[in-house]
């Protein structure tokens, strides 16, 4: 049934065109503008357009760096650059290489002395935590819990900032204090279809960018050998253990 929209849209478009044509014919038939006046108005408009062109290239050249996020580039087998980056990131995580991996962005780092044998990991105020809590057991019992907070680096960090949590140790509880939600707005300037058609960006290049930078966040814990990790309802589905 969705395909039926096209004739309907076309019909509405034709209706608009005919209405404009009727009004246009009436208007241009009745209104007599002097040739000189028309060229004056048009000249001002053209001057405005040319001035905006100069301003545009001045702004675009001196403005912020054009940090483009990873575009959706359809490739063979449905894979794209975005999938490849994510695949490499999670491979590095589950193989215990996240600290060395260049494609991971470190957002926070904490270090706690903890001599206990059990540690409860939970969020403050029992807010659910949807990221991954990766736990790696160290080779020795050094009495220190190291926490690092990562996200995947997609090159759009400035455009889509992450709002990382704070991690605190209170008694036998490692608490993830999720911050209040922040709102970010970003402008995506897309080329007109008349030029996008020739630049390989596709006719409808709008929406061809991934903006899911808030996802793929990992709290990576390195714990002393023999330390037991407990969870509650807020974290029970998030913990995964890393085998090196």
């Amino acid at each position, binding site marked *: 049934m969705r395909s039926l929209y096209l004739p309907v849209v*076309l019909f509405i478009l034709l209706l608009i065109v005919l209405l404009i044509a009727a009004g246009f*014919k009436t208007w241009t038939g009745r209104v007599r503008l002097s040739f000189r006046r028309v060229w004056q108005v048009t000249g001002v408009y053209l001057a405005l357009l040319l001035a905006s062109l100069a301003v545009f290239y001045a702004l675009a050249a001196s*403005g*912020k760096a054009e940090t483009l996020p990873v575009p959706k580039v359809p490739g063979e087998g449905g894979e794209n650059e975005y999938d490849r980056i994510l695949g490499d990131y999670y491979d590095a995580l589950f193989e215990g290489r996240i600290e060395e991996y260049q494609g991971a962005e470190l957002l926070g780092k904490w270090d706690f002395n903890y001599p206990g044998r059990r540690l409860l990991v939970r969020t403050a105020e029992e807010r659910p935590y*949807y990221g991954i809590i990766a736990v790696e057991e160290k080779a020795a019992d050094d009495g220190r819990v190291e926490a690092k907070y990562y996200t995947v680096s997609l090159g759009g960090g400035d455009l889509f900032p992450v709002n990382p949590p704070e991690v605190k140790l209170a008694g036998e509880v490692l608490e993830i204090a999720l911050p209040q*939600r922040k*709102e970010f707005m970003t402008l995506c300037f897309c080329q*007109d279809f008349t030029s996008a058609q020739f630049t390989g960006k596709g*006719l409808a290049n709008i929406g061809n960018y991934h903006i899911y930078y*808030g996802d793929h966040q990992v709290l990576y814990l390195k714990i002393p050998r023999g330390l037991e990790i407990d969870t509650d309802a807020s974290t029970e589905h998030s913990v995964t253990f890393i085998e090196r």
Partner: protein
Amino acid sequence: MSLTETSVPAVAWKQYRFKTKIYAANLITLLAAQLLGLLLSLRGVGFSGYSTETVTYQITYISGDIIVVITLIWAFVVGYNLAGNSFKQDFVFVSNRLSSHFSNIAYLLTSAVIAGVTASLGGILLRVLVLLAYGGQNHFGLFIPPLDLAGGIFAAILYALLVSAGGYLFGMLVQLSRAFIVLVPGLLIGALYMEVKTTGQARLLLDAINFFVQESSYFLFFVKVFLAVVLGFALVIFFSQRMEVRK
């Protein structure tokens, strides 16, 4: 018998100059149409968003597509009206239909150049206004390489010429018989409706549109538009030979 000898190109040139003056108001309507497109695009032509526990992203898409589309509608209307009005004015001159068509084609070409250039630069004006309006907002994709902009202007001119030629052909058919004003849209929409009902897709229209809009080579795009426009004007000249001297 006239003592003054003249030629078709000379008469067509006089008619063309005459038309640029009497249809000068078309430029004001173009300006108004583009400003309307600009206004409609100022707050963005699309939005998407994403939310997690800690962040909400909103992305606003800015593009001059609406300005271009409204300009193309204008070009269609100009072509349509020219077919209806020009013959009445052309009989002011000692002329024939051929010189009239040549002057009309030259006028449509001039209109297409002005429309294409201003529509593309209107998109630049939009970017500047949005930047000024939103201040230090995060943004990306702002810069357009000058060659891409030139290519966009070139394509916009060709699209405007194509659409105005379509409007001219449609206008000429309506001059032949008023029935075409209902028949052409009716047949088009009826055929599409039947195709969608039977096959589930409006392939005919999509294929026709994709023939132009999916062409990624400047040269091939030019050739396609050129051939379509020549065909359209040839049909117009053919049909107009069957018309009475003055309606």
